[in-house]
């Protein structure tokens, strides 16, 4: 940890970016139109998508220039609501320009820094002769896709809208769920070159100010070129960069994000990324899915318990199998031992090698399946399935039981609803297999102990990651292994450190009362 900080600090010293045009930051614009246009062309040299449209405003007969980047702006808005009124507007006595154009958001700025940023963000800027200020019109409009169904976190009963790459749309999607004035937002910009806009959303009377401050401080400390997606932002600001576990929750579901805000967590909307960051995350958050709240609580609880069981199976099953076969075969009853022995008879490898072969094959198949187009992906599945399922066994490279173990492990790891957590678990089983092959059950226990040691000390935004399991907080258990009925959860979980604990009054009519 210390090493990392040292490294980080060192990196910081080197990373004072040499951005060429820093000198213009405080410079004011001139009152001469020609000078301004020359300066603009100087700033945006070699920028073919820059449009400088010289016009004469009809009303005042004043020469002016409208500047924008053609790809980032909405041409219709510019043509119909800016150029058209300016060029053909009726002559009136009024001198105010805001009346003339029919664009809602108009700002007046006079430093080059602000103007440059505005243009880069897709606004259009109007310079006029004899005016030492420029008008900035909000004409943003860039190529974007529509709102689509979520791809990774699909659900049966939950909302079918997923976040898109536009921050403002994502904010709107969350805001639709929480129409409350206490839903506050903090806007921040990150990245010297990327100018990435982050919006931190939280309920001001619920979220703990210390947690919010911690998050804001960490983002403020960032000094990078740019951040391309939410996951890399998470990597920059998370508590323990060496942990295998994800410490901030990435979601593409607006309903999940909104639900977490209501619990007292803080959501960071990252512009240009179809995911938002939810923090502080706890271990159990990664085992929840929106469908848990869409089905009967008994069903949801059953599925949850299966997920935790799947978690244990995915990490420990192959390791336990290796430990039993290579060290403690005496614990298997004779009949079972004979059938295991019969299936391993032809196999020349020790169980560890056998397991590694199968696990690696499976991981490669999985990865190949993700990246390939769907049509070829099917072929991979068939080839992989046949090779793993039959040929390998018949050739005597692996045993039948190992195939079963590996298949079970794979299924168990895919039952985890969160992709990051599932991936972490799939990774963790390899070290477990190694210690199990070296020390048997003792190795397994020590492996589990190390995992627990890491787990109980881990934090997310300064909040214990293991809560409510370690530290133990029984009141929070209503929504961990068993999902209690919604009306019985009248308090927010302590793990979010919400300052307002109570969230509802349980005034559910009881039974047959009329």
């Amino acid at each position: 940890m210390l090493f990392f900080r040292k490294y980080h600090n060192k990196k910081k010293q080197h990373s004072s970016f040499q951005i060429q045009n820093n000198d213009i930051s405080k410079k004011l614009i001139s009152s001469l139109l020609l000078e301004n246009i020359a300066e603009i062309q100087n700033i945006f040299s070699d920028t073919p998508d820059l449009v400088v449209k010289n016009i004469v405003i009809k009303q005042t007969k004043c020469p002016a220039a409208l500047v924008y980047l053609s790809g980032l702006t909405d041409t219709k808005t510019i043509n119909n609501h800016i150029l058209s009124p300016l060029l053909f507007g009726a002559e009136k006595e009024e001198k105010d320009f805001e009346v003339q154009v029919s664009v809602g958001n108009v700002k007046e700025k006079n430093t080059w820094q602000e103007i440059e940023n505005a243009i880069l963000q897709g606004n259009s800027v109007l310079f006029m002769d004899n005016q030492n200020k420029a008008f900035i019109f909000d004409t943003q409009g860039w190529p974007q896709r529509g709102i689509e169904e979520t791809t990774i976190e699909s659900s049966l009963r939950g909302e079918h809208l997923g976040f898109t790459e536009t921050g403002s749309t994502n904010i709107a999607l969350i805001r639709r769920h929480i129409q409350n004035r206490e839903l506050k937002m903090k806007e921040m910009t990150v990245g010297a070159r990327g100018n990435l806009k982050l919006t931190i959303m939280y309920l001001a009377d619920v979220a703990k100010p210390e947690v919010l401050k911690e998050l804001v401080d960490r983002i403020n400390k960032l000094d990078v070129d740019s951040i391309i997606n939410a996951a890399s932002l998470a990597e920059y600001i998370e508590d323990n960069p060496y942990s295998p576990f994800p410490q901030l929750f990435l979601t593409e579901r607006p309903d999940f994000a909104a639900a977490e805000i209501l619990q007292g967590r803080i959501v960071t909307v990252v512009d240009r990324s179809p995911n938002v960051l939810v923090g502080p995350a706890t271990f159990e958050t990664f085992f929840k899915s929106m469908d848990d709240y869409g089905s009967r609580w008994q069903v949801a609880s059953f599925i949850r318990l299966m997920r935790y069981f799947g978690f244990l199976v995915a990490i420990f099953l192959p390791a336990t199998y290796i430990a039993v076969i290579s060290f403690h075969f005496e614990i298997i009853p004779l009949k079972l031992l004979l059938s295991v022995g019969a299936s391993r008879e032809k196999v020349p490898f020790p169980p560890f090698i056998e397991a590694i072969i199968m696990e690696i094959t499976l991981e490669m198949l999985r990865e190949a399946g993700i990246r390939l187009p769907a049509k070829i992906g099917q072929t991979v599945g068939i080839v992989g399935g046949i090779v793993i399922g039959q040929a390998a066994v018949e050739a005597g490279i692996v045993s039948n039981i190992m195939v079963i173990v590996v298949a079970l492990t794979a299924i168990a790891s895919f039952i985890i609803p969160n992709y990051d957590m599932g991936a972490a678990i799939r990774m963790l089983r390899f070290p477990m297999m190694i210690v199990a092959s070296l020390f048997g059950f003792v190795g397994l226990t020590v492996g589990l102990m190390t995992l627990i040691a890491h787990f109980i000390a881990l934090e997310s935004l300064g909040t214990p990651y293991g809560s409510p399991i370690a530290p133990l907080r029984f009141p929070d258990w209503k929504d961990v292994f068993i999902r209690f009925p919604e009306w019985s959860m009248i308090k927010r979980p302590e793990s979010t450190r919400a300052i307002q604990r109570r969230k509802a009054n349980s005034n559910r009519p009881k039974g047959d009362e009329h």
Partner: protein
Amino acid sequence: MKYTQNQITFMQFIFLIHGVQLGVGLLTLPRELAEKAGTDGWIGLIIGWLFSTLASLIIIQVMKNYPNGTIIDLLTHYFGKWFGKLASFIFVLYFAFLGSIVFVREGLFIQFWILPQTDLVILLFLLSIPSYLIVRNNISILGRYAELVFFLTTWMLFFYFTPLKEAHWLHLLPIIKEGWKPILTAAKTTIFSFLGFEVAFFLYPFLQKKHKASIGIFIANTLTLVVFLIVTIVAFTFYSPDEITQYKEPTINLLKIVEFKFLERLEIVFLSLYIFVISTTVLPLFFATVFSASQLFGKQDHSKYVVWLLLLNLVYVFFLPQSFDKNTQLQKVSESISLILVYAFPLCLWVYLWLYSRFKRRPLK
């Protein structure tokens, strides 16, 4: 005041103390009791529990005199800086000694039962990794660990009800068959089984609700007594009084009869998981060691000492071959030291502090 940042809850306090008490001792306890007092040994357990509860209550009473500091702060406060240094030096030695005995014994058990061909140093090195990761943190992490391990391992106790199907309750009768003398010698053994509550010296300032400390330490002792009683009585009723002394670790042997359709030799699985239970003994002892060491040298951060302590242990085991006999001898030595440090020392201190407070108040009147 300086310990307010990382606190432990009431439950963590209980499980930390209970965890330290419950450890390697349980594995051999039924045999040791049977050797001393036959099947009356379980009465000795209750006597031992009485003594340990009394002693732990005295410790809490002593700590109440200086609620925001450990025993070292307390001694420094009342007797001066150098006495405090001396005390922390003694505590470092004591806890390091105790911790390393249990640590080595843990390794010996694993070697004997599960991995007979593996070198002890390698086993201990393996165990050092999670130990380091936990002890280098502050006390609240240790508290969480104790709590989690308690709930992870309690179910193991239920397997001890299986041998009861073939229990012969007559073995226990007649009660007090040979008079009180053997029972009292057994009680001497059991007093040492309950050792471990002395970590309260170091836990007390971290406890959130200090007024509950006495109840907490009482519950911890009682929990330990319950576990001891269950295991001992099951062993006494299942084995005949003569047979039981032939097993070195009757607690483990008992499980040999538990069988499932898919699992036999449960004791191997059990002992592997029992490492968790033993770790809750070793880790708080190690924590107390490094914590006293950091106070001795006046440092805030204790994580460096953890490495040294574990390394020292490994070096010690590497150069001096270990055996059960040697370990038991060392344990005998530690027991007599414990008697002074855990029973005599708090009692004297308590009396002194009581006199001190009376003596101090009188001139004021």
